[in-house]
């Protein structure tokens, strides 16, 4: 059995999962909003990236900067205009709202890009050799960005004034209000941040996957699995959870075939929910 190859493959896949989960962890883990449109944020970001790089011939790095900003702006407006109005309602309302937005995004993307698959040939397509193993360049970059990004957000939430404000809004919104924090503003910025991270995720996934408007639903549940296994709102946890799930999926697929391999992801998620709802690693921001 090619243990090392599978392990490295799993870890790099975990990096992609961490990337998918990064923004969702802020939005679901910290704000408690189940954002059904998160996968579509990723897909649209990937599609915009393809359009910028292949269509307009801009360098990839431009997309890395521009696309997250675009998505962040969209997220801000989405939160400020729509989600804010139902923030105090039952969780299921935000689910329905984000689901509705998801269908609108998918439809819009089909109108703009058509249904076909798009890729980024030539961008980060190569492989890097390390100790006799061949690692995907694009996944390596995604992995590094996901890990540093996660650590960065973790530091931001713990150590900065605004990060603390986000945490207090998540844990006790009333307390935040009486401490002079505008819940609306914090939520808008948090959602924008989460959407921006989804944007970055989408950009970095564009070189790996064939992107199409309906790519999103494939990513969504995996991203949820990652943050549930890792612990809601916990960034180190999500990183560890993503790696664990990636490794598990690759090994599981190797042993039991891809169908069961990807089902393992959900089984682990269910087991975590039932046995250790706070996540396998440490404590989330919301308990």
């Amino acid at each position, binding site marked *: 059995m090619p243990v090392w190859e599978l392990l490295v493959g799993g870890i790099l896949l975990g990096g992609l999962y961490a990337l998918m989960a990064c923004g969702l962890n802020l939005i679901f883990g910290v704000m408690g909003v189940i954002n059904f449109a998160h996968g579509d944020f990723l897909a649209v970001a990937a599609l915009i990236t393809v359009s910028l790089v292949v269509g307009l011939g801009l360098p990839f790095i431009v997309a890395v900067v521009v696309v997250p900003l675009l998505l962040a702006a969209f997220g801000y407006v989405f939160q400020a205009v729509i989600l804010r109005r139902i923030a105090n309602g039952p969780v299921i309302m935000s689910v329905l709202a984000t689901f509705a937005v998801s269908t609108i995004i998918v439809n819009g993307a089909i109108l703009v890009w058509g249904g076909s698959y798009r890729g980024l040939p030539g961008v980060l397509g190569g492989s890097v050799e390390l100790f006799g193993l*061949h690692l995907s360049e694009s996944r390596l970059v995604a992995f590094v960005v996901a890990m540093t990004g996660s650590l960065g957000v973790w530091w931001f939430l713990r150590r900065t004034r605004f990060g603390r404000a986000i945490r207090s809004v998540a844990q006790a919104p009333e307390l935040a209000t009486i401490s002079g924090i505008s819940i609306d503003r914090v939520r808008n910025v948090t959602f924008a941040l989460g959407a921006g991270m989804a944007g970055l995720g989408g950009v970095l996934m564009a070189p790996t996957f064939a992107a199409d408007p309906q790519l999103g639903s494939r990513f969504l549940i995996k991203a949820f699995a990652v943050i549930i296994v890792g612990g809601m709102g916990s960034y180190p946890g999500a990183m560890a959870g993503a790696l664990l799930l990636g490794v598990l999926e690759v090994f599981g*697929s*190797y042993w039991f075939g891809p169908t069961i391999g990807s089902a393992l992801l959900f089984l682990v998620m269910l087991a975590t929910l039932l046995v250790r709802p706070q996540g396998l690693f440490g404590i989330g921001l919301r308990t």
Partner: protein
Amino acid sequence: MFQSLPRTLAALGLLTAVLFGAPTARAADPIKIGIALSMTGNLADSAGHYRKAIELWRDMINQKGGLLGRPVELVLYDERSDPATAARLYERLITVDKVDLLIAPWGSASTATSSAVAEKHKRLLINAGGASEKVQERGFRYTVQTAAPISAYVEGIAPLMAKYKYDSMVMVSRDFNAARDMSAALEKIAKEKNIKILNSEYFPAGSTDFSSNIAKGRQLGPDVWVSLAYPNEAIELVRQFRATNYLPKVFISNGVSQEDFLKAAGKDGEYAIGMSLYEPVMKTKGNAEFAKAFVAKYGYEPGYFAGFGYAGATVLAEVVTKTGSLDQDKLRAELDTYETDTVLGHHKIEPKTGLQVGVKGLLIQVRNGKREIIWPTEFKTIDEVLPLPAWEQRS
């Protein structure tokens, strides 16, 4: 609330009329052909090419004066890649829109459900987009396949392997009905030709990671890697081959034979081999005209998804012209023995099951960003390069 009962009923009646009434008024008494296919859902991309070809066919035939002297009109619906919706929409096409002729949806699953509806209404359904043999083997009288059957997809593989004395393969396919049919067909061939099948796996639709399959492939070292998959999966496979510096001696997938693959895989897609059923360069009947018009209208070369749609419509139009009628039973009877040539090649069905037996398969190789035919020899446009050149030897 009961005082307003008459008014409520009137409103209900109006609503019913709006809902279930035919959406378009008749103009110059056209012949209406009904199709429901995916505009959304996971088959939207492949169905899109199919649809474009059929729309092109409509334009072309109308330019030539239509069918039986009447203009052709398409009634198109989106079945959302959902077999249930497809069934309902064919019910609608038949009973509400009262279309004259039917062409099947894209994909075997939706064809399975819509063929049952057509059968119930004794309506001819041209199965132009479903490769699975199971659909035909149900013995539905009114479903006639113009799409290539699974056997056509795989027939080039054994000769190619024999030529290079390759004797082992792995199969990694998306789990859907046609892929399972294909595996069965390949297993049969393998038995006859003494080919070792080292591994046969299915991945669920929506899979994007093939790390474990590649690791297994590297370990097993097959000569040939076959994937019955959609273009996105073919794209992701070669990308991941490249990214992990893996390459079988031959990589064959039907997903390679589409424009999306050429564009999205770019250089990484070079030398990949595609199972194909149609190529624009083929010297089949009417193909030059079709390919030219297709490129002119849509800006890219048609692949076999498009070829299927055009061929299905062509066969349908020919039998209608020949019988001079829209009577479903007459048309079906004529199709029993009707043989013709389409852009796909020869059309011929097995009368009992309606299974297509005329269309032959091709193998293509991607060279300089274009599809070139490498098999069978009579259509060959280029000599194949095999085994696939290693990644580091490519510029």
